[in-house]
């Protein structure tokens, strides 16, 4: 009987029922003692980005800053900080025609607001920028750039005493001064 079967068919009997071993969950070595949290980020992201808004007109600037903040929330970016920087002031003197007699003196200040965002996927940033451009108010200047240390330092008054002390500390490593210390 089996000889006849092996002569007529080349098939091998397949068991399609799962064995107990197959039913057991397959554990990788990483997830043995800790659960694995998968990173759901698909696209590469920019590091922190500063959206700087400058304008001579204060009211639309403040409203627009709020708008940019709201749009960034809609895009699900992480908003690190949303701050003001001291305004740049200008004194403009207009002269009467064909003379240097001062006609009028105008004091203008250019107000400065920044929204700092992070976790910006590479493909969403152009969408963000085009949406912001569409709703830009009159007279605003928008600068979108990557965050640098200088941007953060410009917010604060430089501490001269601190700088002096740091220079002194560094000077201790200077070979010319080390010779005068007397023990090398």
């Amino acid at each position: 009987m089996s000889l006849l079967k092996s002569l007529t068919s080349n098939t091998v009997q397949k068991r399609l029922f799962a064995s107990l071993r197959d039913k057991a969950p397959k554990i990788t070595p990483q997830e043995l003692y800790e659960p694995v949290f998968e990173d759901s980020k698909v696209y590469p992201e920019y590091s922190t980005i500063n959206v700087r808004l400058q304008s001579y007109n204060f009211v639309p600037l403040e409203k627009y800053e709020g708008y940019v903040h709201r749009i960034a929330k809609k895009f699900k970016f992480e908003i690190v900080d949303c701050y003001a920087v001291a305004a740049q002031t200008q004194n403009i003197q207009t002269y009467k025609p064909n003379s240097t007699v001062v006609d009028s003196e105008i004091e203008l200040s250019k107000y400065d607001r920044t929204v700092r965002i992070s976790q910006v996927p590479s493909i969403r940033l152009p969408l963000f920028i085009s949406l912001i451009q569409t709703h830009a108010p009159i007279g605003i200047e928008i600068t979108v750039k990557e965050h640098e240390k200088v941007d953060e330092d410009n917010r604060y008054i430089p501490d001269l005493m601190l700088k002096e002390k740091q220079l002194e500390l560094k000077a201790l490593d200077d070979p010319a001064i080390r010779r005068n210390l007397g023990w090398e």
Partner: protein
Amino acid sequence: MLKLVSHLNSAFSRNLHISAPLSGSVFMKRQKKVDPEVAKVREARKRKKLEREIRDMQKHSKKSKPVEELTIDVRRAKNLPERIREMPVISEEKAEERALILKEYSKFAHQQRLADEKWLKESIKRQNAALKELKRVSPDLYNAAIQLDQNLLPFHFKGPSLTPPIKGYVSPDGEYVDTTKSWT
């Protein structure tokens, strides 16, 4: 210096008198002999003191540049009661007209916002679909498409102006004087 002295001492112990500045120039200060261990301890103490001072300063160091538009001008706050004005009385027809315009405007603004949100949702959906398809078709192109765009940042954009350029406008002569407060 000390090594030379000790060597000479061992070689010609009784023949040579060695005093500190060997050259004996008038312009060299008479160097006091400092015990090397004492000097070492002195240097370590100085270093520690400087480091501690720097740390303390850094704790209290960050003073942000004052933003004038966010501070209260004390002088003007004091005479605020003198400058309170009463609201002008608006006739009923005008008030009605204004209310109607406000309604129309809020309707328009609401429609704008809905359109924006729809655009945003659609764009993100289409981006995801396109990238998924691209990944399926060619993984190399997909990887190139996902990369951060180097030419995008820094991005500078000026909002629209109030009017188009005025024909035949003669700008007056004058000077711009930058009066921004610098803290260096």
